[in-house]
């Protein structure tokens, strides 16, 4: 009985995090971008500095008509948002926020593989949307999504493998247990490559060629309206949470920090995740969009060699210190 309650409670917590954190990141993005550009951003909804803007947006999306284009492949078109969103919910289950087994949704033996595998599935949603919309902009977006995923999956996997080598385990809590502060300079190249490749996988600026709104009109999501479009947006922000959480756990030591082992670990995890999320927003405001060939070039000629070099370095240091 207590087991069932425990499982239910964990699922509930993960679900609440899944629903609220993306909204917090979205609202932060509204305000941070606005202030970086010398504006105020939303100020009216909810009264205090427009805190309820995204709630209002959600209500608006829910009221809109759910349109499916006549030429579209109905079922795949309607299924795509769910395929894009659900993987991130599953990934959140496996990310530990504190020490011990109590602070993670589910301890998985091959946590890294689970997380990266399920994140890769989310991109299928964009591909389905791009193809099923019967729209040339959507098809272009879908093509670009696929090309981008193929290019950036490899450096992401390689850098994650580097951390797994360093820790001698592929379980996420196990990696955190093995963490020492000097891993930070040791794995810093891997951390940067992982984060950049993750940004590209999420199609966040400056890697948002697949959804370039001024050029191919949001790519795969051109034909979507109402709640289904909102689900795609939610998937993007949930993806930011997942990517920042993963980078925190793999490279920044997760709950490690002053008093981290004495009950304040979750504060450290959330703090590091929040700083990384801020960085994601900052990058959006700072850098112009990369062209398609520049995207491919960056991955194959810079990130992949860097991640291979990181693996070599990890191997050498590992052999020397053991």
């Amino acid at each position, binding site marked *: 009985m207590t087991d069932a309650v425990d499982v239910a409670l964990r699922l509930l917590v993960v679900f609440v995090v899944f629903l609220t954190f993306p909204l917090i990141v979205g609202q932060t993005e509204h305000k941070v971008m606005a202030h970086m550009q010398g504006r105020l951003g939303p100020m009216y909804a909810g009264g205090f500095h427009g805190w309820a803007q995204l709630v209002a947006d959600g209500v608006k999306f829910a009221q809109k008509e759910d349109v499916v284009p006549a030429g579209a492949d109905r079922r795949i078109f309607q299924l795509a948002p769910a395929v894009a969103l659900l993987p991130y919910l599953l990934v959140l289950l496996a990310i530990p926020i504190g020490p011990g087994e109590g602070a993670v949704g589910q301890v998985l*033996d091959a946590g890294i593989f689970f997380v990266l595998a399920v994140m890769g599935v989310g991109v299928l949603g964009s591909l389905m949307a791009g*193809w099923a919309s019967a729209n040339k902009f959507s098809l272009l977006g879908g093509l670009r999504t*696929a090309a981008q995923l*193929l290019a950036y999956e490899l450096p992401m996997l390689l850098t994650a493998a580097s951390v797994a080598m360093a820790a001698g385990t592929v379980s996420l809590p196990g990696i955190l247990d093995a963490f020492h502060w000097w891993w930070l300079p040791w794995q810093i190249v891997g951390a940067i490559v992982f984060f950049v490749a993750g940004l590209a996988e999420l199609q966040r600026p400056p890697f948002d060629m697949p959804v370039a709104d001024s050029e191919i009109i949001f790519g795969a999501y051109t034909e979507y309206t109402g709640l289904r479009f909102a689900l795609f947006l939610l998937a993007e922000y949930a993806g930011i949470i997942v990517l920042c959480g993963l980078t925190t756990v793999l490279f920044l030591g997760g709950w490690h920090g002053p008093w981290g082992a004495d009950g304040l670990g979750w504060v450290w995890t959330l703090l590091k995740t929040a700083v990384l999320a801020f960085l994601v927003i900052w990058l959006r405001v700072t850098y112009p969009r990369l062209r398609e060939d520049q995207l491919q070039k960056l991955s194959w000629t810079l990130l992949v060699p860097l991640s291979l070099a990181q693996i070599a370095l990890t191997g050498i240091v590992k052999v020397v210190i053991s």
Partner: protein
Amino acid sequence: MTLIAATAAAAHATAAHATATTAAADTHGFLSPTGVEIAFLLVGLATFGAGLVTVTTRQLVHAALWLVVTLGGLAVEYLLLTAEFIAWVQVLIYVGSVVVLLLFGLMLTKAPIGRSPDADSGNRWAALTVAVAAAAALVWVVVDAFRTTWIDLDGPAAGSTAVTGASLFQNWVLPFEALSVLLLAALVGAIVLSRKAKAEMSSPPVNSRAVTGSSPSAPDSRNHPIEGNRLNEGTSQAEQEGAR
């Protein structure tokens, strides 16, 4: 390519299915299987069905998406057999990369919405024969090899990462390395082939373009799939309306 992969997947599913049946029959008697065995059978049936749809559907992209279901079902079967590591690698490699590559190829060529009547093979019976033969061979080999093998659930799980890694790099390191070399050779071969094709394609405009140093391939190839798609939209729309 899809056909072969799906057939192989279906064959795998059948083989797994058969082992489950024998296991159930031997341990608990045929009529009192455990929950896990029932789940295994049901997932196996769903996987088999998805594999069948993959090879029989006339809609190319639907075939690829049914392949996702098939491969995902196989991953669930691995999980039920306590092979957690293999299950996640299955999702990572097949669903996350191979199917994305397939979809990329389908979208890059013309993959119309709706049925493609020409997406059928005259070798249907030959393919069926090969598939049945492969499935029969797999079932026979797996049943024969593992009839008396039981998964010990009390010790360290047989499919966990540590156990898999140890057996892979202690007992099976030579086949592993041989496969790595094979894949490397395939990779190099693919690069060589693509370079040759590119050199032939770009040889006529050598005089005009190579001097200026612009890359001819990328922007040109990007326009074709859309036009193909647009041409097909008319027919597919008509077909869908007819279907309604």
